[in-house]
């Protein structure tokens, strides 16, 4: 499964904002953190604002803040504002009305169901846990490499 660039930027933005819902982040800060286009990210943030997932704060020191419950908002809740999620319009595919097309459609539907269930069950809070776990593992890796490079005699 490949997600579009805007969707990826939206997920980065929401995950960054959900890191500390009390804090405001500017689009520039988020763009710099992920090395992505600030212009493109601003458009994405406007969509997230219309979806009620982030709040735009105006004035000096303004920026964006996460709105919602990190333990309830899922990846699917974010993605669906940017692209259809594993939704196959099977009736329009060539040959989809043949027995072969219908059988193939059932298999693809099964895969799509799993994709939707997965994205719909992973909350932002769970993602933050995975991110923290990755950070800890990445921090431990150099020490492991050093230990392997110079074994204790």
């Amino acid at each position, binding site marked *: 499964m490949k997600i579009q660039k805007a969707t990826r930027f939206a997920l980065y933005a929401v995950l960054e904002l959900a890191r500390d819902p009390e804090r405001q982040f500017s689009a520039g800060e988020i763009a710099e953190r992920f090395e992505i286009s600030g212009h493109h990210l601003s458009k994405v943030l406007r969509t997230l604002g219309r979806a009620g997932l982030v709040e735009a704060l105006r004035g000096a020191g303004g920026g964006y803040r996460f709105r919602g419950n990190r*333990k*309830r908002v*899922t990846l699917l809740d974010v993605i669906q504002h940017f692209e259809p999620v594993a939704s196959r319009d099977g009736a329009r595919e060539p040959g989809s009305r043949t027995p072969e097309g219908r059988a193939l459609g059932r298999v693809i539907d099964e895969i799509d*169901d*799993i994709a*939707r*269930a*997965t994205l*719909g*069950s*992973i*909350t932002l*809070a*769970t993602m933050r*846990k995975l991110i923290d*776990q990755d950070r800890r593992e990445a921090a431990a890796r150099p020490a492991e490499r050093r230990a392997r490079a110079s074994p204790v005699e």
Partner: protein
Amino acid sequence: MEHRNTEMPGVPFDIRPARAADLQTVVSLDEETTGIAKVAYWKDRLERYAGGQPDRYFLIAEKEGRPVGFIVGEVRAWEFGSPPSGWIFAINVNRGARQDGLGTQLFEAVCDRFRRSGVRQVRTMIAKEDKLVMSFFRSQGMMAGPFVELEKGLAP
């Protein structure tokens, strides 16, 4: 064995093994979620899992002395080649007691017992539509494993 809540001291609840007398509580908690009162089923589960049988665990969470949740699991071994692992097949927390860390404490309590039983893997199976419970298990760090559930309708 009592499992006292030490990680979140602001949330006063305890976890203890279930007893036969918990039947009505368990039926009510389950009915609140599923809409079905399965008295015979839960009576059977309590008889099989709440009697201190080895590797079978039926735990009740109490908040201020009132049962507000439960979890049931057991150690299963060698199903389609799977080495012994912990299996959770029921969890329920009263609506009013959710988002308080109680489900996490129940999960950790049963995992502690699985560890003491010598297993190093815990598994479960959830309906794809049950987003709340699936999100909960995901939040505990559970991911898709090496097994896939398959089924087929059986014509009479």
